[in-house]
């Protein structure tokens, strides 16, 4: 059951990700991206990380993509005219990407030989356990990320200000 779900989800993920890159209109790109994020949240649930799936949906679909869509709508950037890059750049992208893909595929071939730990605790992704570990073991990174947010907030406010106010 979950196997079929996984393959369907994977197909949808790959399809929507491709549509993000190939759509000509930015608005369609953003909408496909939102769909892609939902399928990725589905993957997280299949991998037993429900909390992470919820956080992923709230942060990505609920905040980041709304911002993107907002900017596209506000600046009216939905022009189809955007020319894709020249064929040389495209070929270079395909070739380099394909080469890297090939390398990684050969690495994955050996990934199946890895010792998979069957002792799996379904409670491990639950909020209670997560909270304990986050505030004991990962307290410093947590605080640092808070600081990062503060910096990002100040930076975004400074950048977003109108030109005249900047030098004062």
């Amino acid at each position, binding site marked *: 059951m979950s196997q079929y779900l996984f393959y369907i989800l994977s197909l949808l993920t790959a399809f929507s990700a491709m549509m993000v890159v190939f759509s000509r209109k930015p*608005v369609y790109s953003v*909408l496909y991206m*939102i769909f892609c994020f939902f399928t990725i949240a589905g993957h997280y649930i299949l991998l037993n990380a*429900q*909390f992470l799936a*919820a*956080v992923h*949906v*709230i942060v990505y*679909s*609920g*905040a980041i993509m*709304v*911002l993107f*869509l*907002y900017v596209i*709508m*506000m600046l009216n950037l939905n022009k189809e005219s955007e020319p894709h890059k020249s064929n040389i750049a495209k070929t270079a992208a395909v070739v380099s990407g394909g080469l890297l893909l090939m390398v990684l595929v050969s690495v994955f071939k050996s990934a199946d030989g890895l010792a998979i730990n069957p002792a799996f605790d379904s409670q491990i992704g*639950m*909020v*209670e356990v997560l*909270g*304990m570990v986050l*505030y*004991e073991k990962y307290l410093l990174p947590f605080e640092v990320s808070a600081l990062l947010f503060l910096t990002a907030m100040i930076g975004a406010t400074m950048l977003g200000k109108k030109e005249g106010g900047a030098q004062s």
Partner: protein
Amino acid sequence: MELNDLIFKIIFVIAVFAVSLLVAMYSTYAERKVAAFFQDRLGPNRAGPFGMLQPLADGIKMFMKEEIIPTNADKVLFVLGPSLAMMTACMTGVVIPWGSSLIIDGKEYVMQITDVNIGILYVFGVVSVGVYGIMIGGWASNNKFSLLGALRASSQMISYELAMGMSIVALVMMTGTLSVREIVESQPGGHWNVFVQPLGFLLFLICAFAETNRTPFDLPECETELVGGYHTEYSSMKLGFYLFAEYINMFISSAIIVCLFFGGYNFPFISELGLSHNMAAILGTVIFFAKVFFFIFFFMWIRWTIPRFRYDQLMRVGWKVLIPLAVVNIVLTAIYLMWKHDLWNTTLHVSQLNP
């Protein structure tokens, strides 16, 4: 899962869906009656006794109207917008506990579609996706009034989502769980959360008004400035979907307020009545709906009493009043919890905070 369980779940899912649609339908009728009462009029009274069939007549009218899709509109997105709005409105009811449990043939059936242990986060996820319906619809109409309505709606909903989330944090700290059912069960009898978290309740209520785009926060569709806001270009049942989604949202957010702050299906003296388990559960559900209907009435009461905010006032209230108040609430709750568990002089272990 056994067959009995499955059948019960399917019936229950259909029942929840039908009840939310029915309540939303009659909310439109109630809204007009309440408005009439506030303005000393009679309200709808022609269709059926006391105008009770008015929602049905409205629905038929909506279906019969001509479908108009503007020439310059983006056809796919134009249809996608109202569908998304309706879908997200119907999705939130999944985690709400509508009652305790029924015992049939010695087997316990829980009156909730599913008890996710991160129920509140699920609600927030769905609510945060709800903004896309309005944004896409407003943008696809290719009309400047619609676009302005959509932009207002999205910035308003993002701003108030923050304050909403932070007002819940204090509550979660008190109860120590994210599951809606466990939060309801942590307030037995009359020990409702509203008495220990009055500020959190007030913030949540204000944000719920903003999230459902009700007056005084109905700037996205304010007639005097924006014609019809994001649904200016919509007609027929697509317009009906937008309006209907708003009423379903109102019903669901009332239910969530009741669950989080007013004890859900709990009410004082439940154990002293000496009722059997099933009777008590059914009575609890009735009480739950009574509370929900009071909040729906409260939404309407506010709508016909208070005028709408100006846009800059709306943003100022959201960012400079509600969010700082929510932070203050969190800090006060944390201090109270520290005092209650006497953690000043001991090393802090998170496990001690969960009673």
